[in-house]
């Protein structure tokens, strides 16, 4: 599955409890939309580490990397370029 779709499907299932998939745009802020809280941030970290096999450093846990589908995609691209090119 495409990485963006993987992210959207994970967010929809874990935080939106929705059968309609991810209903926001790829740039919408997870924080501003009230999608994730502090527990949600930890869940996303775990999703990234388990799915893409890299370690998230504390200093990387900031909105520029985590706050939207596009931010997450760019972050994964930087941390695991092979995962992105293979998708």
């Amino acid at each position, binding site marked *: 599955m495409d990485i963006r779709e993987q992210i959207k499907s994970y967010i929809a299932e874990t935080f939106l409890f929705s059968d309609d998939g991810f209903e926001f745009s790829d740039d919408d802020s997870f924080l501003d939309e009230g999608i994730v809280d*502090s527990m949600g941030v930890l869940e996303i970290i775990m999703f990234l580490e388990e799915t893409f096999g890299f370690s998230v450093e*504390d200093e990387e846990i900031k909105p520029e990397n*985590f706050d939207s589908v596009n931010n997450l995609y760019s972050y994964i691209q930087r941390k695991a370029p092979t995962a992105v090119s293979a998708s």
Partner: protein
Amino acid sequence: MTTKAFHPDILKLDPEKETERIVEHIRHTTFKVLRRKGGVVGVSGGIDSSVVLALAARAMKPARIVALLMPEMESSPESALMGRELCHKFNIEPLVEDMTGPLWGFGAYQRRDEAIKRLFPEYDSTYKFKITLPTDLLQERKLNFFSATIISPEGEVQTKRLPPKELRQIVAATNFKQRTRASMLYYHADLHDFAVLGTPQRNEHGQGFFVKNGDGAMDVRPIGHLYKTQVYQLAEYLGVPESIRSRPPTTDTYTAGSTQEEFFFRLPFETMDLIWYGLENDIPAAVVAEGMDLEEAQVEHVYADLLQKKRTTEYLRLPPLGLADS
């Protein structure tokens, strides 16, 4: 729309008038609205419960007040000493209920320690432990994620980011502390036909720094409208002992003694209160920044953090929802 005025003294109170207003509120709600015969206050030795007790002492005769100290085996002994000092200052004889037994009964310590041990296998009861959020909120916008710190008997400190499963278990187990205390407060309230006078102030309520049905359980909320720095202003006026007023607010929930700033708020209260006021009153970040000698981006970081906390903790402030409410 006109922007409200903003200056660093905006939260200065007239403590005498504010005290009169709250005392009248306590009397009216307890006796006339709730038709209870007095008030129960859980005294922690911290600033908020001290102010509530001092206000109750002005609103009611000592015989109509139950001041409960509810230590458990991990509470700081200093807290109980300060609680006693406070009660004596206001001529109220404190009642002591040791919560260790009920907490053992619930398995609170064991359930929490199981989760800590999954993260730090060497952890045992000789270690101290706390959980914290990143601080330096003004410097950089970081997301809120909790870390666990253990301190060995030799003083060796280890910190790790908490995985969600362990964080949930630690928080769920630790919340037994606030919820068993709430049960004890209501035991004494029922015993005397009294109301529970709660101790959360504005920041705790608005940002969700309380345990639902724990320290969030109460009948009257005397200081729920006050910012933390205003609670300190009242404390001074009411004669709360200096030892309590000069102590940094702690959670007194974790053995390593985390302050409320590192556990939740991420900023000193003097800074946070003014920015929280700005946010609540729709004052542009640039205006707040100018009034506080900060950069606009710093205030924006804090606005974003406060909004996130407010939004994600909304469920804590909602009453039970039934079909009749929809």
